[in-house]
């Protein structure tokens, strides 16, 4: 479904992604793990058109998208849930969800969109209660739910999720991961970026490990979670300690 081939992305002189290749098949959950600054967010931004690659190719359903604007890429069916939620704070929960479906209003009936609104509110009942509240007044967990809910409103084929569990209480993390699994059952393909490697590897089908802009490992998530190197670097106590200090 998504084929990334030898891309290189830069911020000015900083070479953030180096000859990076990966692929995602339909209805997979693919996890991308790596420590802070490895380039995970950059990869998602590169796919969604925010920071286009300088070289290399990105094909989505066989169409080259690496030179397209973010708006065009959304229209193709890729929705990016960015790091830090990036909600429209002064707008209401309902308005945020509506804008998630921005491109659909001209193509689809209001009824289909309302059906998805109900679907999102079923997934996250708290959003229904808060629908007239300004998004900026929500708690961190609620904001993350809204950010994912807003992305669902775009009816993506592929959803890019950037650290959805960051800074959230354990129970909320479980709720979010359950929803991710539910999205997969409803046939959404997912690229999941996480520092919470254990949780990500548990729900993923396959995974990639990213270190300083390069893919250093890839494979079945069930295999990687048992890999000594991965355990040591991302799952062990050392790593937890490292994260705490960050």
């Amino acid at each position, binding site marked *: 479904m998504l084929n990334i081939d030898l891309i290189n992305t830069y911020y000015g002189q900083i070479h953030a992604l180096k000859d990076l290749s990966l692929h995602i098949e339909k209805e997979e959950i693919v996890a991308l793990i790596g420590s802070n600054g490895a380039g995970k967010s950059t990869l998602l931004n590169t796919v*969604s058109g*925010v920071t286009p690659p300088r070289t290399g190719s990105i094909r989505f359903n066989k169409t080259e998208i690496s030179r397209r*604007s*973010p*708006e065009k890429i*959304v*229209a193709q069916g890729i*929705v*990016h849930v*960015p790091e830090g939620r*990036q*909600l*429209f*704070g*002064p*707008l209401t929960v309902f*308005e945020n969800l*509506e*804008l*998630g479906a*921005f*491109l659909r*209003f001209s193509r689809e009936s209001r009824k289909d969109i309302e059906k998805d609104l109900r679907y999102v509110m079923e997934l996250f009942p708290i959003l229904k209660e808060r629908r007239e509240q300004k998004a900026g007044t929500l708690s961190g967990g609620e904001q993350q739910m809204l950010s994912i809910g*807003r992305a669902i409103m*775009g009816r993506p084929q592929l959803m890019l999720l950037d650290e959805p569990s960051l800074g959230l209480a354990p129970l909320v993390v479980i709720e979010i991961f359950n929803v991710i699994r539910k999205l997969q059952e409803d046939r959404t393909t997912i690229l999941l970026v996480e520092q919470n490697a254990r949780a990500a590897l548990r729900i993923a089908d396959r995974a990639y490990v990213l270190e300083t802009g390069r893919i250093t490992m890839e494979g079945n998530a069930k295999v990687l979670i048992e890999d000594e190197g991965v355990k040591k670097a991302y799952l062990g106590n050392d790593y937890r300690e490292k994260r705490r200090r960050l």
Partner: protein
Amino acid sequence: MGIYEQILQFVLTGLTIGAIYALVALGFNIIHNATGIVNFVQCEFVTLGGMMMYTYYSLLGIPLILSFFLSMATIILLGALIERGPIRAARSKAIIVLVFITIGLSSTIRGTALLAWGPDNVPLPSFSGENVIRILGAAILPQHLWIFGITVGVVIFLQYFFHRTLIGKAMRATAVNRKAASLMGISVNRMVLLSFAMSGGIGAVGGMIIAPITTSSYDTGIMLALKGFSAAILGGYGNNAGAVAGGLILGVLESLGAGLISSKFKNAFAFLILLLVLFFKPTGLLGYGESERV
């Protein structure tokens, strides 16, 4: 005329001129919220509203209503062209660069207007006669009612647009967070284009409805835009409710000051009020608008 009638008179005329400041302030806000810049061409939007109306109506003999909408359409088009041309083409999107582009455009357009229409003030007829209307001992002109009614209409339209339509919400979203807006598939360029077109239209309306009272010339927009800008800051830059409140307050205080103290200092009053507010409440009376601070 007793002192109370006089005060009422000053308040009423103050509200009318304040309504114009409010319109101009709204024009400033809309572009600011979409782009983060102060658009100096707002002056010319106001000027050209009056001058195009004069051209269509007085020079070409087109009926008043039609002239009104034609002038508005012309300035909307001008606003769109400014965005589509120099603003979008600018290699650097730094705020300061874009602001200087609007300063350059502003003087270019003013110079062209001087060449086209000459330096003299031109009259425009009132929309519906000059018969004075008496209200509790104060006297106002039918044009004052037009100014008030049209301003209320514009404000209601904007409120509806920004809070009830998808495009309006998309514009607010773009003002709050451009990156997130583009990730929703909202074209930021298109929202900026729309903001220039709308500001053009609103500025032109302000210029057209005030012209029958003040007459119009190639540079009438400057003072009005300066006051409108003050009104926007007074209310809280970027905040539309603030723009309306700021405009009306500025208009009334200025009119009272000019009437009761001295008309020589009329313009000084406006800026004095502005300085006081900025000194005591730098974010304006109602606070900044929704947009991210750039």
